[in-house]
C-alpha cells in the first residue's frame, strides 16, 4: 500500500515547470539512460516486468522488443486518450507532472531506437494539453527533445496532438488512424502496430502511466522495481476510485493490495448506511464483481481468474441504492454512442442491447429477452476488429449472469405497472428520444 512512486509529492506547487521538476531530481533517469546502450535500457524494462497500464496489461518491455531493428522511421505514440469511463489517473499525472511523462517518452524512445514521438491527448483535456505543450516547449529549450539529445545519438521530436472526442480513439489502431488525420476506425490486427502502425511504420504505443513509470524503473533498476507488487503484477498502480464512495480520487497502491482496502480504507467506502452492490474493477468495460469479491487482491492475474480484469485500474463502486438495470442501460447507451459502426456485431449488438434494456425498463419484455440479450453479448465477443463491442458485452453479460433475479423482478413489476396505467405515455416519451 505504501511505496508512493508516481504520486510522491505530486501536489508540490509548480511541479509542472522544468525548474521544480529538475530540482527534485527530474531528468536524471534520462541522463542515466542515454549514457547506457539501448539494449541495457530495454533489459531494465524487461526485468521490471511492468505491464501496460492502459487496459490490456501487456508487458511493456516485450512490446519494445517486438520492434524491428534497423534505421527506418519508427514511432512512439503515447496514448493519452483516457476515455474509459471511470478512469482519470492520466489526467492528474499530465496536469501535475508533465515532465515525468516527457522523460519517460525519451527513455522509451532510446530503448526502442525510435525517432518520432507523439502524445495523443483527448480533446476534452484542454487544460492538460496546454500544460503539456508548455512543458514540451521547455524541454525543447533545455535540449531534452529535438536533435541529438544531450549530445547522444538520439534525436526525438515530440508533438502533442489533441483529439476531438471519440472513445474509440483510445483503442490503439483507432488512435493511429485518428493521428493520421482520418476517422478513428480501428484496423485489422495483425499486423500489430509494433510492425506496421503509424504511417505504416513500426510503432510503440504506451499509456501515460506506463511511460511515467519508466524514469522510476531506470532510477531504481528493473530488478528492484520488480520487488514491488506481486509476482505477475509488479510495481505500483494508480487506481481511480469513483461512484458511490466518500472520497473519490486517484490512489497509488502496490499491486496485490486487497480491493476492500482500496475501496473502504482509501476511498472511504459507500455513504453511511449503504453497502457495495457491485463494482467494476477496471473501468466500465470490465465484467462487474459483487460485494463477495471485495477481498480479492487487486492485481492483473487474480482479477482475470475471477472472470474480470484490471483494465485501466478504474474502480467504479455502485451501492445498493441503484438498480442494476439503470447501470446496464447507461453503459449500453454509452457503447452504442461510441461504436464506430465498422463491424456489424458491435454496431448492431450495442444498438439492440439498448433496445432490449429499454423494453425491460418499460415492462414490455419477456424473460426470454434476457436470454436473447445474453446470447447477443456472446455473439459480439471476439467477432470484431477491436474490443469496443466486447467492452459492452462483458459487463452486460456479467450483470445478466449475476443479477438475473433483479432483472426478472423489475420486468414483472414494470409489466404490472404498465398494464395498470397503460404504458403508452412512457412509449411516447421513449419515441421522442
Amino acid at each position: 500500500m505504501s511505496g508512493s512512486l508516481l504520486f510522491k509529492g505530486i501536489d508540490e506547487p509548480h511541479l509542472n515547470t522544468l525548474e521544480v521538476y529538475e530540482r527534485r531530481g527530474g531528468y536524471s533517469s534520462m541522463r542515466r539512460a542515454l549514457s547506457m546502450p539501448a539494449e541495457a535500457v530495454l533489459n531494465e524494462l524487461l526485468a521490471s516486468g511492468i505491464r501496460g497500464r492502459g487496459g490490456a496489461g501487456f508487458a511493456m518491455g516485450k512490446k519494445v522488443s517486438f520492434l524491428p531493428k534497423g534505421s527506418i522511421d519508427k514511432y512512439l505514440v503515447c496514448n493519452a486518450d483516457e476515455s474509459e469511463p471511470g478512469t482519470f489517473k492520466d489526467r492528474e499525472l499530465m496536469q501535475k507532472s508533465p515532465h515525468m511523462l516527457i522523460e519517460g517518452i525519451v527513455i522509451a524512445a532510446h530503448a526502442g531506437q525510435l525517432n518520432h514521438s507523439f502524445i495523443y491527448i483527448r480533446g476534452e483535456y484542454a487544460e492538460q494539453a496546454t500544460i503539456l505543450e508548455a512543458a514540451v516547449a521547455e524541454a525543447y529549450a533545455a535540449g531534452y527533445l529535438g536533435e541529438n539529445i544531450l549530445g547522444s545519438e538520439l534525436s526525438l521530436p515530440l508533438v502533442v496532438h489533441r483529439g476531438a472526442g471519440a472513445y474509440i480513439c483510445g483503442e490503439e489502431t483507432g488512435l493511429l488512424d485518428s493521428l493520421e488525420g482520418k476517422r478513428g476506425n480501428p484496423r485489422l490486427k495483425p499486423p500489430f502496430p509494433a510492425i506496421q502502425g503509424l504511417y505504416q511504420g513500426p510503432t510503440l504505443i504506451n499509456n501515460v502511466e506506463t511511460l511515467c513509470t519508466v524514469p522510476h524503473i531506470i532510477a531504481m533498476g528493473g530488478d528492484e522495481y520488480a520487488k514491488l507488487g506481486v509476482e505477475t503484477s509488479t510495481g505500483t498502480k494508480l487506481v481511480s476510485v469513483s461512484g458511490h464512495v466518500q472520497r473519490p480520487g486517484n490512489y497509488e497502491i502496490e499491486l496485490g493490495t486487497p480491493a476492500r482496502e482500496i475501496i473502504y480504507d482509501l476511498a472511504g467506502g459507500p455513504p453511511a448506511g449503504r453497502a457495495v452492490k457491485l463494482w467494476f474493477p477496471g473501468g466500465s468495460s470490465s465484467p462487474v464483481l459483487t460485494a463477495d469479491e471485495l477481498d480479492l487482491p487487486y492485481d492483473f492475474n487474480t482479477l482475470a481468474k475471477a472472470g474480470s480484469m484490471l483494465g485501466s485500474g478504474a474502480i467504479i463502486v455502485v451501492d445498493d441504492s441503484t438498480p442494476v438495470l439503470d447501470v446496464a442501460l447507461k453503459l449500453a447507451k454509452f457503447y452504442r454512442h461510441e461504436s464506430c459502426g465498422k463491424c456489424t456485431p458491435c454496431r448492431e449488438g450495442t444498438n439492440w442491447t439498448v433496445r432490449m434494456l429499454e423494453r425491460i425498463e418499460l415492462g414490455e419484455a419477456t424473460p426470454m429477452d434476457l436470454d436473447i440479450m445474453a446470447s447477443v453479448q456472446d455473439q459480439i465477443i471476439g467477432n470484431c476488429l477491436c474490443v469496443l463491442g466486447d467492452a459492452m458485452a462483458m459487463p452486460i453479460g456479467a450483470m445478466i449472469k449475476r443479477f438475473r433475479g433483479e432483472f426478472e423482478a423489475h420486468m414483472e413489476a414494470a409489466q404490472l405497472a404498465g398494464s395498470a396505467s397503460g404504458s403508452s405515455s412512457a412509449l411516447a416519451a421513449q419515441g421522442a428520444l
Partner: protein
Amino acid sequence: MSAAGRRAKRSRADAASQTGSPAAAAEAESIERRRVRHARIPRYAHGSRVPGWDDAADLTKDPSELPDPAQVDVPRALRLEIEAAMAKYPDSRSAALPALAAAQRVHGWCSPEAIEQAACVMALTPGYLTAVATFYDMFEMHPAGKHAIYVCTNISCSLCGADELHAAISSAVDGDPDFNVRSFECLGACDIAPMASVNGIYVGPISLDEVDALIDDLREDRSPLPARQLNRRPSTDAGANDFPGGTPADQRPENGGPS
C-alpha cells in the same frame, strides 16, 4: 417470441381489425403502436457516427473537388495556424483534427465555409474533412452557442446525480442561443462528479443550487465557479504531499466528499 409466433400474432391482429373483437383490437393497437415507435426512432439516433448512412447518394451532385485557392478567402491567422500544424507532422494530413478545431474556433462551428477554408489550406476535399469532422463529438456540425457546457452523464457521474444536473443546467439556460449544453460521455473527471466541462474548464462537483451562479458567471464573462475548478483540487493520495514543506498525510483536510 419465435418468428412463427410473431407472424401468427400479426395475422391475428390483421384479422382483429376486420372482425372488431375488443381484445383483439387492443392487441392490434398495441402492435401498431410498437410499429410506429420503431419507425419513429431513427436507427442510430442520438450520436450516430455514421450520419446519413441510409440516405441515398445524390448522383446529380458534382464530385467533391479541391477548393481553388484563388476563389476561397481564408483568414490569414487561420491559414497560418493550419500551416503551422501541418508542418509539425511527417504527413501533413495528420493536421486534419487541429485544422478543423482551428476553423471551428474561427467560425463557431464546422460550417461548410469553415470546412472549405480548412480544406483549401490542407489541399484536401471538403468532403474528406466533413467525413472526418462528423466522426468526432467535439466538432459541431450545426451552429452552436459560444459557451460550451459538456455535462458528463456517464456511469460515475450519473451515480452522483449527473442527469439531474444536466436537466437543471438545460432549464437554467432556457434555450438561450449563446449556450451549447450537451450531455457528454465520460470526461475523465469522476473524482469531481457530477461535473461539467465549461468552455474547456473542468468544474465540479456542481450542486444543483450552484447552477444559476454558473450560468451567471458565463453570462458576465467570468471564470465559471472558481472554487469548484478541478485545477485547484489537491490529490486524494496520501503520498501527494510528500515534499519539503508539504502537509503530512495525517494532517491534511479531507478532500471533498460525496454529495
